C-alpha cells in the first residue's frame, strides 16, 4: 500500500501508529467495516486547494475528473504530475479514495466523536492529550468533539477515528466520508 502521510507521531498518543499506510477499515455500530483502497484514484478538495493558491492546478483537474461534487474531484492519480500531487498533499488538498462495492468513498480530514456520558468524553480527551499538537479541535461541546488533523489528510482522520474507537470506546466516532453512490435510475419511459 502507498504511504499517504510523511509524519509519524511519538509513541503512546492517539497518533502512535499515525498513518504509515492507508488504512482500509472503519467502525460503525462498534463493528469493523472494510474499505478497499483505490490506489488508482485520488480526490482533490477544491476548497483546500484554492485556499493554498493552487487554483490553476485545480482548474486543470476537472478535465480528467471521473467524479465531482460537494467540493471534491475524484481523478486518476496518473492524470496529475508528481509535483502537483506533492503540492496538493502538502496543502492538505489531496485525499484518499476507497471503494465499497459500487460506491466511491473519499475520506476527509475531519473526525466527529459523540458522547453519551461524561466518562466517554474524559476517556477520549485523555487519549488525545499527548498528541494535541497534531490536530485542532474545531468543536467541543458536552456531547460532541470535532477534530481536524493538522496534516489535512483524510487517511489520518480515518486512522485517528479508528484509534479513538479502539482505545476509548465513545458513543460513536466517525471520519468524514464523501460518498458517490449510484442514483436510483428514473429512465425516461
Amino acid at each position, binding site marked *: 500500500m502507498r504511504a499517504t502521510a510523511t509524519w509519524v507521531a511519538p509513541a503512546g498518543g492517539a497518533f502512535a501508529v499515525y498513518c504509515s499506510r492507508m488504512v482500509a477499515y472503519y467502525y460503525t455500530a462498534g463493528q469493523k467495516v472494510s474499505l478497499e483502497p483505490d490506489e488508482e484514484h485520488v480526490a482533490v478538495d477544491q476548497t483546500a486547494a484554492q485556499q493554498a493558491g493552487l487554483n490553476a492546478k485545480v482548474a486543470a483537474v476537472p478535465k480528467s475528473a471521473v467524479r465531482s461534487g460537494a467540493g471534491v474531484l475524484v481523478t486518476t492519480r496518473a492524470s496529475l504530475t508528481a509535483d502537483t500531487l506533492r503540492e496538493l498533499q502538502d496543502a492538505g488538498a489531496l485525499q484518499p479514495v476507497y471503494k465499497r462495492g459500487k460506491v466511491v468513498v473519499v475520506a476527509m480530514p475531519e473526525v466527529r466523536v459523540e458522547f453519551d456520558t461524561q466518562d466517554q468524553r474524559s476517556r477520549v480527551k485523555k487519549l488525545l492529550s499527548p498528541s494535541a499538537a497534531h490536530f485542532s479541535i474545531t468543536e467541543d461541546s458536552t456531547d460532541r468533539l470535532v477534530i481536524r488533523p493538522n496534516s489535512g489528510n483524510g487517511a489520518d482522520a480515518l486512522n485517528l477515528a479508528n484509534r479513538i474507537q479502539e482505545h476509548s470506546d465513545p458513543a460513536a466516532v*466517525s471520519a468524514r466520508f464523501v460518498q458517490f453512490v449510484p442514483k*436510483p435510475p428514473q429512465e425516461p419511459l
Partner: protein
Amino acid sequence: MPAYKALGQWHEVTLVPLGGLQGGKLALPAFAGKAATSTSAAAFLEAIGRAVGASSVLRSRIPDVGKLSVVHGKVAARPNNGSRRAGVSPISTPSVQTLATQTVIAEGMRQADFAAAQSFGATVIEEGLDGKVLLRVDSVDQAFALVDLLTKREVGSVTPNFLRRVASIKLSAPATAWSLKKVGAPAAWAITRGSADVKVAVLDEGVDTSHPALKAAVVAEKDFIGSNGNSAMPAGNDAHGTACAGIVLSRDATYSGVAPGCSLIAARIAMDDGTGHWVFDDFATADAIDWCWRQGAAVLSNSWGGGAPSDAISRAFARARTQGRNGLGAVVAIAAGNDQAPIDFPGDLPGYITVGASNPADERKTRASSDGENRWGSNYGATIHLLAPGVFIWTTDISGPAGYDPGDFTKTFNGTSSATPLVAGAAALMISANPAISAASVRDLLGTTAKRIEGQTTWTPELGWGRLDVAGAVAAAKAAGAPPVGKVLKKKLKKTAKKK
C-alpha cells in the same frame, strides 16, 4: 385432452381453433391485475395474418392462420426471487397469447423415429442446431398427436412449436393516479387531509420549492451539500426530491400528494455528479437529519441509501426518533432500495419504517412482477416494515422543461423512492389526526393496519406487514388516543412540578 411434456411435467391444454370462432369473440382470462377480456376473433386473426405475411419464417410454419388454435390451460408459475410460494399462471392471458401451430420441435430422433413420423404424415421442414428438427403436419390436433407419438417413442425431447403473441410492455402511465386510490387515501381524507402544523422533511437531492404545487407548503429549506444556503433548490435535472415531495404533499388537484394539508421542510443532502451517482457528505447528511427534527419535522422521508454505513447518520436518526416532537419522536421512513437484494444502509437500521415497493396488482415489486418494469425490484430483509405503491406514480416534477418530463408533473416516477414518501405522508396524516400519538405508535399502526398481500398471514422479509393502507392507519391513529406517559414526558412533568 391435448397434452405435452415440458420441464418433466405433463401439461393438459384446451385448444380454441381461431378458424372456428367465425367472427365471434376470443375470451382471455384475468391475470396479474388485468381483468378478463375478449377480443374480436376477426381482428385477432387479421393481426396474426399480418405478422405471418411479413415473415418468411412464420409462413413456413403457418401455411394457414385459420388453422391456428389458442392454447388455454394453467401452469405452475415460477416463484419470484425471494418469494416463498409460486402461483398458477394461465397459458394465454390478455397480455400473452399462446398459439398452437401445425409444427412440432423434436430433438434426438433416431432413423426409426423419423420413419414413424413420416408414416404419421409429418414432414421435416427445417433442421436446426444441435439435432433439432421442425416437423409439420396438417393440423394442430395432429401436431399434438405427433407429440404424443414421439414422446412414447422416447425421443430426446418433443414439444409443440408455439407461436407466442406478447403485448409490447407499455411503460406508459396509467390513466389515473392509481396509487392514492389503492391505499385508500380518499377515505383517509374524510378524517384529515393533513394539518399545516405537521411538517414533513424530505431529505433528497433538493426540492423545487418554487413549484406551484409545493410552494405554499414550504416552511423551511436548506442546502447541506451545495452552496445554496437557505434554499433547497435542485441543480439541473435533479428531480428526484421534487418527485418525492409531491408524493407527500402536492397541493395540485390532479397530482395530489397523500397529505396535501401538511407542511414541507426541504433538505438538500445529495447532488448528481453527472455520471448517475449521488454525492453525499456523511456529516452534512447527519447535520441535515438533526436540523430537520429540530425544525419540528414530525416525519422524515428518506428516499436514498447505499454506501458505507455511518454512525454519524445512524445516531442522528436515533435522535430524530427519540427527541423529535418534544419526545414523542419523529417518524423516520427509509427506502429499502431497488436492487431486489438485501436492504442496504440506512434502510437496514432496525426500529425505523423501511419501505419496499408494490405494484397495481398488489404484488411485491420484483423484476418479474406483472407491471412490466423489469429493470428493478424491491429490496428485502429483516428491517422491512411494509410496502407501498412504487410504479407509475403521478407526482410533481421540476417546474418547466427540466426534470423527468417537459412539464411540471410526471406520471412515471417509481422505485422504493416513491413508496417511501407515500408512507411518510400517511404518517403525517396519522399525526394530523392524532397530534399526541408517538412515533413508535405510528410505526406499529402502519404495520397492523397494512393490507396483507400475496397470501401472507404475518410479517415476511419480502413483504413486511403488507401494503400500506392509509385509510386504516389514519382511522387507527385517530382512535389510539394519547400514548402512555413515557420516560421523557415523566421527566418533563416532574420538572414542571418542581418549578411550580
